[in-house]
């Protein structure tokens, strides 16, 4: 309780907000550009250099639009859902170490903090689906919940594998422990499982059953417009960033790397993972919900369990 420092908190929150918005602008641009190029198109070209400011323009458009709530919606839930979805991000960004010294808040339990808060996103999706009095929304929310049940255990098991390797829950120490060899090479299976899990966690294609535009219109955010919609949007891209940052810390050696300064390495690795997720999205078709559940329970869970056991035994010997 001694480390309450108001100024520190305010500055880091401002920094995180800036980071969140900048990241959304960049990743959305990257996503649309990649999507375009993968389909032999240009992607956005008009606003700014090669369309880099397109997201900003879209954001302004969204903010200036009216927020419409369906007449039978549960207004309290309807308004609360995007907030529940977005706000935990600001806290979850805090323990992420951009380098050995650049991090908003050092805690011993950083890894748990990020993962626990990441779960609240699903709660937001569920509330959105439920609150908007829309069948598509409800289906989307239900799917998101079914999804979280299937991937959470393998995700936690892979995380635990890394934790027993590094002997700490602190993100900074986990990154420090990989000064030489990255965990991605020591634990390739865990790395692959984690990659699948973060795509699942961020509800992105091929696991975007919660919004599945070809079946559910837009799933949980069908009824959302204007600012509330953009909050969901921001939340999705911020969760992508957080998940990729976590993967960088746990598997890609955090900020370690030759020549370039540490934070640059960190950002580069994070954006590489983000690009990978975008690449997945524009390559793979959406899986069915039963295929996803099958994969979660029959493939990810046993493999991650075996991997965890082997690691534990090897470490104990």
């Amino acid at each position: 309780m001694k480390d309450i420092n108001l100024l520190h908190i305010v500055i880091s929150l401002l920094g995180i907000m800036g980071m969140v918005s900048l990241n959304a602008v960049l990743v959305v641009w990257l996503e649309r550009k990649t999507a375009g190029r993968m389909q032999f198109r240009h992607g956005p070209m008009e606003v700014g250099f090669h369309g880099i400011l397109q997201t900003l323009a879209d954001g302004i458009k969204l903010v200036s639009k009216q927020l419409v709530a369906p007449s039978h919606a549960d207004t309290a839930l309807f308004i609360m859902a995007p907030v529940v979805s977005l706000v935990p991000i600001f806290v979850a960004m805090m323990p992420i170490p951009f380098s050995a010294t650049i991090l908003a808040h050092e805690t011993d339990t950083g890894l748990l903090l990020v993962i626990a808060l990441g779960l609240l996103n699903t709660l937001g999706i569920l509330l959105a689906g439920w609150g908007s009095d829309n069948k598509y929304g409800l289906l989307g929310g239900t799917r998101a919940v079914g999804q979280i049940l299937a991937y959470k255990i393998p995700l936690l098991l892979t995380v635990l594998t890394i934790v027993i390797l590094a002997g700490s829950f602190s993100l900074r120490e986990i990154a420090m422990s990989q000064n030489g060899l990255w965990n991605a090479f020591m634990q390739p299976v865990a790395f692959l499982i984690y990659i699948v899990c973060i795509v699942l966690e961020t509800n992105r294609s091929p696991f975007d059953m919660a919004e599945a535009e070809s079946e559910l219109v837009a799933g949980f955010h069908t009824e959302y417009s204007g600012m509330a919609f953009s909050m969901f949007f921001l939340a999705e891209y911020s969760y992508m960033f957080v998940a990729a940052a976590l993967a960088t810390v746990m598997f890609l050696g955090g900020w370690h790397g030759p020549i370039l300064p540490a934070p640059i390495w960190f950002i580069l690795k994070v954006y590489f993972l983000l690009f990978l997720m975008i690449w997945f999205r524009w390559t793979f078709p959406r899986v069915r919900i039963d295929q996803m559940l099958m994969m979660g329970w029959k493939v990810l869970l046993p493999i991650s369990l075996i991997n965890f056991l082997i690691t534990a035994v090897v470490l104990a010997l």
Partner: protein
Amino acid sequence: MITSYVHEIVRGTGSLLAGMKVTIKAMLSRTQTVQWPRQYLTLPQRFRGHIQLVPVESTGYPKCFACGNCARTCPSKCITVKGKKPEGAKKKSPTTFLLDFTKCSLCGLCVESCPVSALGFSKDYAMAGPSRQDFAEMDLLSSLASPFSTQASKEKDHG
């Protein structure tokens, strides 16, 4: 059992990687679209846009002599031709040549049926307009020179 389980996973991962290879190749290759309206595509020789009247090379007047074959052949009845003889000419020349492009199916029968090959396909693909009327009565004569010198003679013909 366990071998088929492992085999399935390995095969699945392999096919995922194959897919990713396709998309990354596509990403690194040249884009096929152009930045319209700043750039236009070069269209192939046989591109079929809406029909247009072919001019006589020396005069620039339409070749058409308003026989009405095309209008009769058109399965959608979307051509309206009226014509009369300009002063001192042997053949008629169209005074009205309207195409209802909203109905045209670009079948090309009119082009085939014209005895003097006075119809062809244009290469205009960037067609958009604020109202339906812009395409319900497209005046194909407007892009060509007219053998009827004065506006008045046209008016009289319209009645």
